[in-house]
């Protein structure tokens, strides 16, 4: 059939194969366009198909795998499919959250790319009726020595802050990693968490034939046209020239939009609401109609435009920021208009719902586009792309990895390294306290944001260890979930659900597809085992430059609940003389570790095994201890292992410690060589301190024994230095200088 159709096309004039290719559609996909329409599209229609069927909007490469993720649980109110996931947090409230990438735009223009990334994810959340209460950002940059890295770090951090600070939502956490694998493709993943009343959640499914479709927010310009298709294509040396107009964020307008939308949402005027994100007006109107099983008719001359002479194509594909689309009750139009006028925002009725099941676009009365809604959505390509599993690397025996000459020196190097140094330089540029509910500030395991007016709080974190995902995608995917779960647990929270942002290279390459599949499998298993379903997410593919993909980076954003902020803890050592207890089993796993990479310059070995049953058992014990007030500080163990966690706890509390390897003498640290004991990255581990007297420590160990959880006393807090087994004391001053020094020095402050 397709063979019969294509020759016609070449002749028909307007749509040439080049135009089709520029729209990122394959020949086979273009054939389907014709099949769906029953004729050739015009340019406007082609543009609409192209964005609707782009990877970014259709998830064509990932959909069949995403379907395997666990998305249900008693806490889930709305899983994937809406603008953001919704979970029940009790007392009539819901937490609404999602994470989204803005990788490509941030590489091109770091400040605006990051800023508009924050703006976009905020809209996904307040569109559903939530007041945003926290932002997080997971960032990945290239080699610090790469010539563009510093500029990108400066721009992205300023952009995240510039937007979040102005809208008045605290930025409370995130991640920053450096790796040469991101030299040509940085990652900027932004997460927003909001809170809404459970009985007042807004969705995008339109209803009510004849109801007005209302456009609100900023005017439409020629911004980011084809941003969605760009986010779905690999970079090459020509992309500079093909650049669309960069989108500029206006956080001030966003703040007004938040307030205006929430004000209107307190009435019963809104039938459905949807933000304008990637693929702007096209995607949002399509989605609203499609979810409601209806049609739409838009009068494009009524769309508020920033510039003269904008074409229907430009209006439909523009990605101008700070805009929303609503279906409202006809009788409430004046009320709605008054709210938006109060906030000095655009308000325009641009069309109505119809019963035709079609999207009809008119300009001054003339039909300029006419597409069937459901067939277009149903015919969207969905690929089961070929994939090859990542070959499993050989296990690396701890004993085969050379020990450093001096443990203290090695620790100083690690805590002062790009990946493990303090992120203070970053978060001090973010207003992390506005709204006056930030109970747990950045710098710990999970941020704690109080639920306004109560003693309860949400714990929030983002995590991913790309080193592990690269070595073993499935273990890495599971580890990312486990670490997020651990970070929530380590502050005393009950983990509830996650959002994920799957960042990968070109899925048309089977080895990359294999990474995606493996990570999703690992995430799915871990979510199921830990009772933490996936309620929203985002996929960013084609993070690849000249055929080189990024390390697989499935970032997990997790949310947990604290019933009483008085029963939480943080990582800081509190008082001298407290016993330090290591919970979990230490075998000294050094494969794919930071020690191996940064101290020895080696990237090899298997990722640490993830025992989900042990994670659960250990975490449940720790959470119980925290809630029972039986520990004074808690930190989970991650990159850099035990030694790095100890250093962070000592620095946070400005209090040293003396550590003894189990079995006392250093040469006698069981089967595990001392450096593997200190720097190994075995999972499912925590450090806790027991407040007060001897009995407290004993009772902790007893509780662990009873729960079948390995636990050992490894030292005691106190003094102005951290003393590792067999080593000289490392003064906290020296440790702090190393830990706090790298980032400001690198950034030239």
């Amino acid at each position, binding site marked *: 059939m397709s063979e019969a159709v294509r020759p016609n096309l070449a002749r028909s004039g307007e749509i040439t194969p080049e135009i089709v290719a520029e729209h990122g559609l394959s020949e086979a996909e273009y054939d389907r366009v014709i099949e769906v329409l029953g004729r050739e599209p015009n340019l406007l229609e082609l543009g609409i198909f192209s964005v609707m069927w782009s990877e970014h909007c259709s998830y064509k490469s990932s959909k069949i795998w995403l379907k395997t993720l666990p998305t249900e649980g008693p806490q889930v109110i709305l899983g994937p499919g809406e603008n953001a996931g919704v979970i029940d947090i009790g007392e009539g409230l819901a937490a609404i959250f999602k994470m989204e990438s803005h990788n490509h735009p941030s590489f091109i223009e770091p400040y605006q790319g990051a800023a508009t990334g924050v703006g976009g994810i905020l809209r996904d959340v307040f569109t559903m009726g939530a007041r945003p209460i926290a932002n997080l950002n997971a960032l990945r940059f290239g080699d610090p020595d790469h010539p563009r890295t510093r500029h990108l770090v400066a721009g992205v951090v300023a952009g995240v802050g510039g937007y979040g600070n102005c809208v008045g939502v605290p930025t409370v956490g995130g991640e920053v990693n450096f790796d040469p694998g991101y030299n040509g493709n940085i990652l900027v993943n932004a997460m927003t968490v909001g809170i809404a009343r459970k009985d007042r959640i807004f969705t995008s499914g339109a209803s009510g034939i004849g109801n007005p479709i209302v456009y609100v927010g900023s005017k439409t310009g020629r911004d980011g046209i084809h941003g969605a298709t760009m986010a779905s294509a690999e970079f090459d040396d020509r992309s500079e020239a093909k650049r669309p107009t960069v989108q500029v964020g206006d956080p001030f307008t966003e*703040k007004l939009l938040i307030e205006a939308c929430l004000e209107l949402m307190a009435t019963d005027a809104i039938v459905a609401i949807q933000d304008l994100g990637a693929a702007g007006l096209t995607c949002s109107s399509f989605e609203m109609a499609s979810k409601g099983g209806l049609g739409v008719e838009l009068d494009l001359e009524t769309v508020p435009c920033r510039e003269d002479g904008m074409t229907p194509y430009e209006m439909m594909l523009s990605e101008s920021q700070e805009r929303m689309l609503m279906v409202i009750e006809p009788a409430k139009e004046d009320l709605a208009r008054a709210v938006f006028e109060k906030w000095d925002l655009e308000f325009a009725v641009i069309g109505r719902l119809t019963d035709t099941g079609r999207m009809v676009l008119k300009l001054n009365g003339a039909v300029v586009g006419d597409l069937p809604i459901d067939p277009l959505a149903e015919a969207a390509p969905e690929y089961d792309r070929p994939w090859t599993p990542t070959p499993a690397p050989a296990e690396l025996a701890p004993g085969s990895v050379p020990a450093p000459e001096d443990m203290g020196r090695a620790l100083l190097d690690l805590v002062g390294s790009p990946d493990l140094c303090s992120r203070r330089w970053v978060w001090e540029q973010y207003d992390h306290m506005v709204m006056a509910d930030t109970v747990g500030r950045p710098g710990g395991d999970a941020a704690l944001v109080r639920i306004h007016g109560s*003693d309860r709080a949400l714990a929030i974190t983002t995590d991913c260890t790309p080193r592990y995902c690269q070595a073993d995608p499935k273990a890495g995917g599971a580890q990312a979930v486990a670490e997020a779960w651990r970070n929530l647990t380590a502050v005393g929270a009950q983990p509830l659900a996650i959002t994920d942002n799957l960042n990968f290279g070109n899925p048309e390459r089977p080895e990359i597809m294999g990474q995606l599949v493996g990570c999703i499998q690992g995430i799915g298993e871990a979510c199921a085992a830990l009772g933490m379903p996936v309620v929203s997410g985002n996929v960013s593919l084609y993070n690849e430059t000249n055929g080189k993909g990024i390390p697989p980076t499935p970032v997990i954003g997790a949310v947990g609940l604290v019933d009483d902020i008085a029963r939480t803890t943080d990582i800081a050592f509190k008082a001298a003389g407290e016993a330090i207890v290591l919970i979990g089993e230490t075998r000294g796993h050094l494969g794919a570790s930071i020690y191996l990479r940064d101290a020895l310059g080696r990237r090899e070995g298997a990722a640490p095994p993830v025992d989900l049953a042990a994670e659960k058992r250990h975490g449940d014990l720790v959470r119980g201890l925290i809630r029972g007030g039986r520990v004074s500080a808690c930190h989970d163990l991650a990159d850099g292992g035990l030694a790095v966690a100890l250093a962070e706890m000592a620095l946070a509390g400005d209090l040293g410690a003396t550590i003894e390897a189990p079995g006392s003498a250093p040469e006698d640290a069981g089967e595990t060589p001392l450096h593997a004991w200190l720097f190994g990255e075995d999972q499912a581990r925590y450090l806790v301190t027991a407040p007060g007297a001897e009995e407290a420590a004993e009772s902790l160990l007893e509780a662990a024994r009873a729960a079948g959880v390995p636990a050992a006393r490894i030292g005691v807090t106190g003094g102005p230095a951290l003393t590792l087994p067999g080593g000289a004391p490392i003064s906290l001053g020296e440790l702090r200088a190393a830990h706090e020094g790298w980032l400001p020095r690198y950034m030239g402050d």
Partner: protein
Amino acid sequence: MKAAIVVFPGSNCDRDVQVALRQSMRGAPGHDEPIMVWHKDADFEKVDLIVLPGGFSYGDYLRCGAMAAHSPAMTEVVRRAKAGVPVLGICNGFQMLTETGLLPGALLRNAGLKFVCRDVHIRVETSQSPFTGRYQTGQRLRVPIAHHDGNYVADEEELERLEARGQIAFRYCEPDGAVTEAANPNGAARNVAGVFNEAKTVLGLMPHPERLADSALGGADGRPLFDGLVEALS
């Protein structure tokens, strides 16, 4: 006592300061809930205290506080301030107060050019005001800052006048109270963190006392400012 908080488009610490004020007013007889006044409303009820909250009024575009300074409510605030009604401007509110001329000087971009959000120490320069009555002169407070433009400038003569008349309310300092360059987070002249008008009925300050007025948030050094105001104005 009655207090009004003026809300501008882009204000984002309006609720925070309302919570702090409410906490200090709670239980004291004759106290009303602090009211929120929309910037277009020049006709708001008679109050004993007006607060200009922090945030990014008008996005901080052009100059911080410049556009807010011209709103109808501000015209009224200036009128009442001149008639002696106490006005507290925090962060963006401080910027508005200098833009209207109720306070001398101006606030420029931070010397480090970056937005800075962290706890700092400030020294109370005088307890002789309705705002600082619950503090001791010389007392050190730990309070957060969160701003991009907190670099206080005024010419030498003006600064001398401020010193001479005791109009400097707070200075950035070390934890032990020493006023040093290292303790200055934004390059402010003479480490000035807050200033009074001559009558000490208007206070503008860059730090956010409302953000550490609740020990659940990690400190409460900001609370006596609100407690003291409630006491002084009741």
